[in-house]
Structure formats: C-alpha cells, structure tokens
C-alpha cells in the first residue's frame, strides 16, 4: 500500500512500491432515483383512476439526480471517508457501490460483493439477539459450524450482555444503540473485500466506538477496503487516511483526510 507520505519521496522509495490492487472503480457514475412524495400529490381514487386511463405517471413521483458523474478508484487496504452536507449523495453513492441502486450512466466495478452496513439494516425484531446473529451470519454465507464458533465472539464484541443477559431477549426490547451495535458486530464478523459503513458507528457509546474503530482498522489490514460515511469528522479522522468530499452529488475534493477535512470545515463555517 502506498500512502501520501511515501509518494512524496517517491524517488527514494521507488523499489519498494508494490502494485496497488483496485477494489472499487467508479467511472463517471450518475445515479437517478425516483422519490415518492407520499400524499403530496392528488391521491384520491378518482385522480388515480384518471391517471390510469390517460396513462400518465403519478404526479407524486419525482426524479432526483443524486450522484452526478463521480469517478474515483479505491485500492486494497484503504479506508476512505465520505463527507459532505446532508443530501449530498453520500449514502446513495454507497448503495450504488453495493449494487443496490442501478447507475443511470457510467459504471461501478467492484471486487467480490461489497457489504453495506447501514443503520436501518433490520433483522427479525421478534427474535432474540442470538438467533439474529445466527441468521445474519448465515445470510452472509457462513457455514453453520463457522456460525457456532463465532457466536460467542460476536455477542461479546457487541457488548449487549453488559447489562445482564440481553442476547436471549427479543431484539425489539433493545435500545437503538444496542441493536445498532449488534448489527455492526454481525457485519464485522466476516472478512469483507469491501465494507461500506453508513453512519453505523455513530449510535454506539464511546467505548463501543473505540472498539469498532479498532475492528475497522483490522479489517483494513487484512486487505479489505472500507468506506465510512459519517458526520462525525473525528471518527473519519481516526479511521481513514483518504477522504472524499461530496457536495450536490459531485466530488468537491479527494485526498488526504486532514486536507479535505480542513477545506470542508472552512466551507461549512463560511456558509
């Protein structure tokens, strides 16, 4: 892996440069999605029938051009922060990388199957935490034996048993922080080629954040690529050495985290 410090004195360290292996290539990607404005349009049955007869699309659907021509390449072993104001297209970009949203134009190429870890990654709320761990691990393609081996590790990492035996209680009894922690622990239990984290670290308490940042570092060292969307600049600074700043669906800046965050702060304060 080559980072900026090494590339600055590139003439000295030239023989040591290894070939960098790209894991995500985003080539001029545009993402357009349709939003349902809900009850904003005329939703009466008569109006709906009229639309069906005249074959016009519902007026409460609006197209949003969320990502406009983003291009970058991510390499193995990198942790990349994605920052930007609300609605700048960060989460949309992650979903396009995960293959959950189609690109309108351009292309997204990935190595293996990226895993998206979001805050709304719901499992079965009526089932105990343990069962959810089993299900989640099987859903990630682990074998039953592997799941049995990892189950205690995952429960311990999530720390949900710190206040008594919560692992055997249904997940609907968990606080939002607890279930977010359990979900992160499940997703982090597997070795991902590409892990996309969408604000999932924000809900945990301080001790858990420390632990999860450590886990993200581990995942990176074992040759994965991690993307982190966060509004907490401190956690981006702690985990990522490269940061992409998105604004209105376009890349405003892409470079070392410290530089990008400084520019972003100036932008946010100057607004």
């Amino acid at each position, binding site marked *: 892996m080559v980072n900026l410090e090494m590339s600055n004195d590139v003439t000295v360290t030239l023989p040591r440069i290894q070939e960098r292996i*790209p894991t995500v290539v985003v080539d001029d990607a545009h993402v357009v999605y349709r939003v349902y404005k809900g009850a904003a349009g005329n939703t009466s049955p008569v109006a709906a029938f009229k639309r069906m007869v005249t074959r016009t699309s519902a007026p409460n659907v609006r197209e949003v051009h969320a990502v406009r021509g983003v291009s970058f390449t991510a390499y193995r072993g990198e942790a990349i922060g994605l920052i930007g104001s609300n609605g700048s297209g960060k989460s949309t970009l992650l979903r396009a990388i995960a293959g959950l949203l189609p690109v309108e134009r351009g292309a997204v190429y990935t190595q293996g199957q990226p895993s998206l870890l979001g805050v709304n*990654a719901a499992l079965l709320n009526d089932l105990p935490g343990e069962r959810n761990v089993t299900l989640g691990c099987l859903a990630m393609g682990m074998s039953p034996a592997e799941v049995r081996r990892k189950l205690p590790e995952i429960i311990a990492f999530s720390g949900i048993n710190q206040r008594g035996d919560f692992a055997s209680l249904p997940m609907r009894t968990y606080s939002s922080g607890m279930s977010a922690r359990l979900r992160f622990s499940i997703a982090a239990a597997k070795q991902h080629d590409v892990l996309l984290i969408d604000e999932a670290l924000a809900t945990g308490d301080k001790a858990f954040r420390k632990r999860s940042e450590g886990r993200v570092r581990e995942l990176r060292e074992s040759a994965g690529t991690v993307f982190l969307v966060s509004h907490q600049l401190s956690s981006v600074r702690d985990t990522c050495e490269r940061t992409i700043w998105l604004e209105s669906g376009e890349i405003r800046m892409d470079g070392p985290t410290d530089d990008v965050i400084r520019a972003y702060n100036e932008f946010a304060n100057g607004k």
Partner: protein
Amino acid sequence: MANLLADPDSGLTPAQLAARHGLRVAGQRPSLGRYSGQLWHYRHFISAYAHAKLTASFSNARLGQLWQVLTPLTNAAVYYLIFGLVLEQDRGMNNFIAYLTTGLFIFNFTQTSVQQGTQAISGSLGLIRALHFPRACLPLAITATQFQQLLGSMVVLLGIVVATGEPITLMWLMLVPAVLLQTVFNAGLTMAVARLGAKATDLKQVMPFILRTWMYSSGVLYSVTLFSENLPGWATAIVQYNPMLVYIELARIALLEDTHLLNDSLPLTWLIAVGWSLLAGLGGYLYFWRGEQEYGRG
C-alpha cells in the same frame, strides 16, 4: 495523489483497469448455474430463516406454537358448521368431515404460501438492502415455513380421518409424493408472485379475491360432482386441469375409502400433478431469477 505514481495501471481507462484486475459490474445478475450454486450454498440460511419466521409469528401469542395445530382445527370446525350442517353440502357423501378437512388443509398450504409470497420481497426490504444473498431464499423460506405448518396440520388431518372411521391403508403412502409435488408447485408459484409483488404493490390487495375464486373452483368446500352436474362440458374439462383440484383429489384418493372425484383416471391425475409441478417450479424459478438485480431497489 494516485495519479502521481508511475504504476503499471496508469494510462488505462477505468473500464480497462477494472477488467485488468477482474472487477465486476456492481449488482450484476449471476448466471443461472452460478445462481443455483449460490442458492445451494445458502440452504442453511433458508431453513434457519424459515424456522425463525415460524417462531417469530407465534412469539406474541400466549399459546405459542400450539396455534400451528389450533388454527387448522378451528378453520375446519367453522367450515363444517356452515357447509356441512347449515348448507348441507355433504350430498350423501359418507365422510364429509374428512372430505372437507382434506381439501381445506391442502388448499390452505398453497393459499398461505402465495399470500405471503406477494410480500416476500416487499416485506423484507431491510434485510435485502443490508445483506447480499440470493433473493430466492426468501420465497423458498416461505414455502418451507408453510411446509412445516402443513406437517402440523397433517397430524390433525390424519387424526380426523381415523376418528371419522376411515381405515389405515397402504394408499396413505400416496400422500407423500402428492404433497411433495404440491410443494414444488408452491415454491415456483411463490417465487413468481414474489417478483410480481415486489413491483406491483397493489397485488397484495387483489390476492385475497384471486385466491378465494381459486378455492371455489377447486372443490374444497362442496362435492366436486357439482362441477360436472352444473357446468357445461368444456368448463368441467378446464376445471379438471386446475392444479389445486388435482392435488386435493390425490390427497382424497389417498386418505378416503369412498369419495367423490372429478377426474376418473388416476394416471391422468398424476400426470397433471407432475406437469403442473414442473411447469410452476421451473417457470417460477426462471422468472424470479431474471428479476434478481431489481429486488430492493427504488
């Protein structure tokens, strides 16, 4: 900073770079063979998910999984009250209770699978958007859950059949292939409606009516002789090929000594049953696979 370095990848377009390192387009549909392989790899997930769904559906009821047996029993009692005692639809049949419950339980297996299948995708969006697995796991898990439910109902059914004076014969064994064929049929149908329901969310509202019409044309609640007596010849011929009627008749032949049937020829009935199961099973699977990359988007 990436462009400052003289690495062997410089000068390549992004597409060439991706091809050079074997990257694939995100969210692309796998080939049918690969997809089937993935599905096989996820078989443990399917059974765990089916079991979890079953447990979760009873988790708020005080009697818990006892409802698995109580629901079909209550159902049978209500229909017997109305169609057997009030409307007197037994038409001189020897064992109307067993006739009715057999039809009811067999039909219910398909009915519930299809009903839940319409929401297989739209009801699990959280799971779909969070994790990557072959989406066919979801409709298949529904079929598996309903199959487990059916086994519970079967115990009740066999109890009713024996209690109403039917002898235990070797014919009972015929029930096994009949139910297996129906399960394949259900799996295919559930996958098909899962894809339909993922896009057309109104399907959920329409489904109960379709299913009710289907139930009345499958001779569940009354003697099938009503069809041949009251329908014109061509309509009876169509009803004879109704897959649900066929699966129900096979179960009735297996369990009941003397029962009213619409299809006279047993080999033909089996042939129709196998045909439907192959058609729905393969067709539904192919249809669902072709939509794989669309699920969970929007």
